[in-house]
């Protein structure tokens, strides 16, 4: 157990050495005083991608750069900026990659269009199989097709 703890300590020492020794940015880990503003910031931070650890949101990541991004988000929200404007500011610098909120663009429109087309196709098939027949029933006598 003791060896394990030493090993663990050594591992963390190694990661600490590979990163900076500066304290985190003021608003990296500090919430805004206004709960409404903090809620807005939190919602936005959960949908922004950490650039260092690309599978995490900046709300989830302990990377120093994610802390710096949270500081940006919180100070901008505190200054009265709209969350979507902050997202746009980052997208202008890093492209859509930085945002987890999907947008309709030249390359993503099929993602939005295909489900609608499938729903439409399903509706047409259902209508022909059920609705169509139901409407036909009263006229079946005069059709003579089935006879």
């Amino acid at each position, binding site marked *: 157990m003791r060896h394990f703890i030493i090993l663990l300590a050594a591992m963390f020492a190694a990661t600490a*050495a*590979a*990163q*900076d*020794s*500066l304290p985190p*940015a*003021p608003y990296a880990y500090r919430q805004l005083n206004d709960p409404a503003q903090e809620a807005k910031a939190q919602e936005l931070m959960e949908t922004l991608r950490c*650039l*260092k650890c*690309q599978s995490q949101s900046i709300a989830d990541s302990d990377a*120093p*750069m994610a802390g*710096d*991004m949270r*500081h*940006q988000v919180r100070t901008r929200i505190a200054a009265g900026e709209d969350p979507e404007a902050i997202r746009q500011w*980052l*997208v*202008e*610098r*890093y*492209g859509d*990659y*930085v945002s987890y909120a999907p947008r309709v663009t030249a390359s993503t429109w099929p993602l939005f269009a295909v489900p609608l087309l499938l729903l439409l196709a399903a509706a047409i098939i259902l209508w022909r199989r059920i609705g169509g027949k139901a409407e036909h029933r009263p006229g079946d006598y005069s059709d003579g097709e089935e006879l």
Partner: protein
Amino acid sequence: MRWTLWAPLLLFAFFLGLAGYQLSQPKEQFIHSTMIGKPLPAFNLEPASSTRPGVSLADFKDGKPKLLNIWASWCLPCIAEAPQLEALKEAGVEIIGVAIRDRPEDVDRFLEMHGNPYTRIGADDISAIQLEIGSSGVPETFVIDGQGIIRHQHIGDVRAGDVPELLARLQEAAQ
């Protein structure tokens, strides 16, 4: 059996093939800045070292293209690129550094050990300039033209093979 019965299976095989192909492709690890062609923001950074002055936007607007090197004393690849930066300096290139989340004493020690190719070094303690120009890590090197417009981004350490490319980009930015 009608051929349409096979359509779902074929569709499934197509998607399986597509997924298999995509999995076999190498993943793009870099996030490229989308600020190429756009101007640097207004900024003013305190000196990061006792040996060089700080950096502001005005330093980039003297008509001469320069390199903006985003680095840090705690960054290992930055040690690897030090000889190449020195070579660029020897070739007459002005290199302005921005030290990310760094302490002056650490910066001084790094420069003493690995050389100082910089004319100025600004301290960016909260990665503010880094975020402004769409840089996502250290080291990164940007070519900035004489009007302060970002012309090129090099991600990762500058290796010997990258030096001619950067010189060419600087030449291009001078026109």
